């Protein structure tokens, strides 16, 4: 369907699709098999000016916004979401600096990220704090002109490969949710180490590691915004980046659909291609309709988000939820359509199904997303006096 | 000079528009209209069943062209040894010279290699023009261009043939440009029209999808290059007689703009495919670099060389040195076994003159089967190792 994208958006779409087709597709199986970080593709994306899409021009970026970023992520995801999450997670690490950083911090870190010279990462999750983000135990204690960090972050995407990290740590345990703060931290800082690389079901080319802080001293000017702003910063960041995960879902689903339909057209059983069977046609019809609905909602949410409304939590949660559930269903159905070939590792579908699962889990589980939507609706309807109000 | 549409005969059927390789014909109000992108190739004239298309007449050859006589071949040497293509050119050159009733000369540039000149006579040259100078010992495009162009200006041959080798491609176009004459590269067939004294130069184009016959009607000499192994070598006959004219540079200004610092030979560990009598080739069906071992095993068992289609080389499963086809090497072995190769025209252009062609492919409709002497529809990963095994068993048996 034609979404009447602008010329620039079409340029981004075509360039990202070209990278997916020419650079990611040929190597995705090998990267997955070897669990190898896609550095070469990172360089290609950097040279193509993709890392800076959403970063303002004054910091070396392209000065565009969420829709353009999501268009790029969607196309990359058609080939492999391990590569697209490497790309998207760098955005996750950069957004806190973009939204809450002071001029010095933005000037220091954003240009490097925009040029793809340094990857970024975001550290919130801990062994005891996943959905319950409020339960984090990493501490940041003020000491003269520095903060000293102690604790562990778990399952951090780009962990160990990124150079720039935004970390949420407790500066004041007594203040509960208002006691967390956000910090910028660079790889190589003494006391900042990485744990082992995790072995995952899917997105195996993406690097997932523990971050370990042992009396890690960082300068006070690395504090983002003010003390106590940590969780607000985290929530606002996640609101911004959830569409990126949705874009992964839409792209992944599309990739699975393309493979499944190509197969169904050539697989002859009972004397004809299986696509002439109603059962297959119905499955494909549902897959394509759901994916198109996800795409349409994604672009609508992005456009809305780019108009800077006060609160986008509900819409952002909705699209993350819908697109990722769609991706899981579509990839599962695509494996089914391909039958035995869908299950074999020589063919790309089983990887797509393995990859899809994480989309429902990270960046807020889909259960948490439903909580967010529910709570937002309660607030929203509390304010409505009439039926059919606009 | 233009392509003319006879409006009375044109029915606007549009076949010409579909055929035009340059998208230069539109059908407007039921008549063909020729656009600016027309390249005057004449493909449309062939297909118009109403004879509504016509080329303005080609100019008659300039009269003094008839003073150009003789067929020449450029005898390439490297390291003081004649390259095989020289003998192939002598074979074809002999036929052309005989039909035109003129002599066949070979041009040899080098230093102190008169023995090579005798070999040229033994292979059919009536005359060898041997320019002997230290400056010509090794190939230099400026020096060779200056000398050959000068010789041609003085002696006025009507046809000059050379090998489409690295050396040939490097300097023959420069000779043609210097003389302001036409050159057709990579010819796969040559013929003459003795009446008009025209050389008919046939070569593939569009990646081998079409063949074109080219003429050079109004300039001389008519120049063409031919790839190694397109023509068969002339027989060697020591009894043949011919003149060997030894010349010097005679004050030709060489104006050397380049200099060879070093020559590096790279001999492949498998037999050089252009010389091989047996070639086993792999294409996209081989599916990976590791799988090429299957092809190599069969080649080894047969004592042959390994070839590849462009698809396999582009996928980086094997190096370009093994590529057979329009943009790779031309081969004509006794036996060519194509495994997992679909048979795209540009590949066929490189191996179609093989004596026996065997095709192994999963797809029964693959075009390679039309060009094959023997075809096996099947899985190459089954057939090829089986062949290797059976051949080894045979060889063990005969020991």
């Amino acid at each position, binding site marked *: 369907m034609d979404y009447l994208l602008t010329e*620039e958006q079409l*340029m981004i779409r075509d*360039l990202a699709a070209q*990278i997916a087709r020419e650079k990611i597709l040929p190597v995705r199986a090998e990267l997955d098999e070897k669990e190898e970080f896609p550095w070469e593709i990172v360089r*290609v994306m950097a040279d*193509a*000016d993709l890392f800076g899409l959403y970063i303002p021009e004054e910091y070396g970026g*392209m000065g565009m916004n969420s829709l353009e970023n999501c268009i790029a992520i969607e196309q990359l995801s058609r080939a492999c979401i391990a590569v697209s999450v490497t790309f998207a997670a760098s955005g996750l690490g950069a957004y806190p600096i973009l939204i809450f950083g002071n001029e010095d911090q933005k000037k220091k870190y954003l240009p490097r990220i925009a040029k793809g010279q340094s990857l970024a990462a975001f550290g919130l999750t801990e062994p005891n704090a996943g959905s319950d983000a409020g339960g984090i135990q990493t501490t940041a204690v003020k000491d003269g002109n520095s903060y000293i960090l102690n604790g562990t972050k778990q399952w951090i995407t780009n962990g160990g490969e990124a150079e720039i990290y935004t970390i949420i740590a407790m500066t004041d345990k007594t203040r509960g949710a208002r006691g967390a703060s956000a910090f910028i931290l660079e790889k190589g800082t003494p006391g900042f180490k990485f744990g082992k690389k995790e072995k995952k079901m899917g997105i195996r080319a993406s690097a997932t590691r523990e971050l370990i802080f042992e009396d890690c001293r960082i300068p006070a000017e690395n504090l983002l915004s003010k003390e106590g702003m940590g969780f607000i910063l985290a929530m606002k960041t996640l609101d911004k980046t959830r569409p990126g995960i949705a874009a992964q879902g839409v792209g992944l689903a599309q990739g699975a659909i393309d493979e499944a339909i190509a197969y169904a057209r050539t697989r002859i059983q009972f004397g004809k291609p299986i696509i002439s069977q109603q059962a297959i046609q119905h499955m494909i019809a549902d897959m394509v309709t759901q994916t198109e609905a996800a795409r349409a909602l994604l672009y609508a949410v992005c456009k809305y988000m780019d108009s800077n409304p006060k609160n986008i939590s509900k819409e952002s949660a909705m699209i993350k939820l819908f697109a990722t559930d769609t991706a899981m269903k579509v990839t599962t159905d695509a494996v089914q359509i391909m039958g035995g070939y869908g299950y074999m590792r020589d063919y790309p579908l089983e990887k797509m199904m393995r990859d899809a699962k994480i989309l429902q889990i990270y960046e807020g589980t889909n259960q948490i997303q439903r909580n967010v939507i529910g709570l937002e609706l309660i607030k929203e309807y509390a304010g409505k006096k009439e039926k059919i109000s606009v | *000079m233009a392509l003319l549409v006879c409006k009375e005969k044109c029915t606007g059927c549009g076949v010409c528009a579909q055929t035009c*390789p340059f998208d230069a014909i539109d059908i407007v109000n039921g008549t063909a209209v020729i656009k*600016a*992108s*027309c390249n*005057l*190739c*004449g*493909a449309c004239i062939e297909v118009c069943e109403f004879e509504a298309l016509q080329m303005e007449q080609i100019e008659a050859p300039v009269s003094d062209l008839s003073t150009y006589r003789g067929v020449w071949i450029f005898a390439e040497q490297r390291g003081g040894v004649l390259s095989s293509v020289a003998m192939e050119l002598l074979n074809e050159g002999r036929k052309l010279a005989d039909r035109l009733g003129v002599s066949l000369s070979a041009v040899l540039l080098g230093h102190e290699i008169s023995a090579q000149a005798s070999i040229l006579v033994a292979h059919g040259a009536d005359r060898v023009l041997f320019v002997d100078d230290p400056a010509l010992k090794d190939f230099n495009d400026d020096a060779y261009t200056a000398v050959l162009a000068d010789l041609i200006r003085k002696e006025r041959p009507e046809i000059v043939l050379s090998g489409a080798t*690295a*050396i040939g*491609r490097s300097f023959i*176009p420069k000779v043609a*440009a210097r003389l*302001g004459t*036409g050159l*057709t*590269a990579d010819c796969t067939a040559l013929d003459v029209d003795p009446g008009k004294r025209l050389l*008919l130069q046939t*070569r*593939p*184009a*569009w*990646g*081998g999808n*079409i*063949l074109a*016959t*080219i003429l050079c*009607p109004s300039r001389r000499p008519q120049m063409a290059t031919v790839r190694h192994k397109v023509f068969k070598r002339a027989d060697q006959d020591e009894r043949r007689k011919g003149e060997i004219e030894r010349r010097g540079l005679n004050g030709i200004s060489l*104006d050397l*703009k*380049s*200099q060879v*610092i*070093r*020559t*590096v030979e790279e001999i492949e560990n498998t037999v050089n495919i252009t010389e091989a009598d*047996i070639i086993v080739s792999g294409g996209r069906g081989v599916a990976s670099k590791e799988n090429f071992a299957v092809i190599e095993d069969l080649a080894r068992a047969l004592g042959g060389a390994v070839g590849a289609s462009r698809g396999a080389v582009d996928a980086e499963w094997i190096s*370009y040195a093994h590529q057979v086809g329009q943009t790779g090497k031309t081969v004509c072995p006794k036996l060519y076994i194509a495994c997992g190769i679909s048979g795209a025209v*540009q590949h066929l*252009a490189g191996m179609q003159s093989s004596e026996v062609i065997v095709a192994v492919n999963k797809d029964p409709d693959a075009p390679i089967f039309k060009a*094959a002497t*023997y*075809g*096996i529809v*099947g899985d190459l990963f*089954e*057939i090829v190792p089986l*062949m290797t095994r*059976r*051949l080894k068993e045979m060889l063990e048996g005969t020991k």
Partner: protein
Amino acid sequence: MNIVVCIKQVPDVSDVRINPETHTLIREGVPSIINPFDMYAIEEGIRLRERFGGKVTVLTMGPPQAEAALRDAVSMGADDAVLLSDRAFAGSDTLATSYTLSMAIRKFGSLDVVICGKQAIDGDTAQVGPEIAENLQWGFAAYVRKIEDIADGSIRLERLMDDGYDILNVRLPAVITVVKEINRPRLPSLKGKMQAKKMAIPVWTAEQIGADPERVGLKGSPTKVWKIFTPEFKRKGERIEGEPRAQVDRLISEIRRLGIV
């Protein structure tokens, strides 16, 4: 360094089909692309600029739609582009084409290197590069697979030969043709694409480059296409049927019978 890269817009010949009835090319729907070998030339030009500084201009002789190829080259990183287009150029063979390109190259003023791809995939002649060098009387190297250095008014490079390669020193200014081994062409960048879209590309005519009308187009083309036909590959075409073992045995016995093995 002032660099000009000569490119050609060609039909994607791998996509071409033959009409089974008329045995002619079906040109409809075949996309136009930059001649694949020219991509390596553009890339090498950009790399030389990155190494030695200077400017890369892409030049093409073609119909008005060839402009799209120039813009694609700019999106890869070429600085400037010129389109040579004129009805007078129609029907050019390699001699006329190289003459026309040489006249345009002269118009650029002081240049260091002209880079061409090894051959165009439609004409497949590999003649235009060396003929340009001859017209300009510049240094020349064909089938360059590596540029080692540019210093002291000359370029040191590796030239592919049939059995290996030569290391050559060529005086500047020089024309070189390049092969695929020389580099890996980059993808366009977003900034490049945007710049390419905005760029005004001048069109030079025969008059503007001072071309002699007798030497361009059909008049300037000594070679003429007499006819075009599709190749026919006629073979015995015997299908060997049966189980793999039987097929292999049959094949081996045939090639033994023919005396090949």
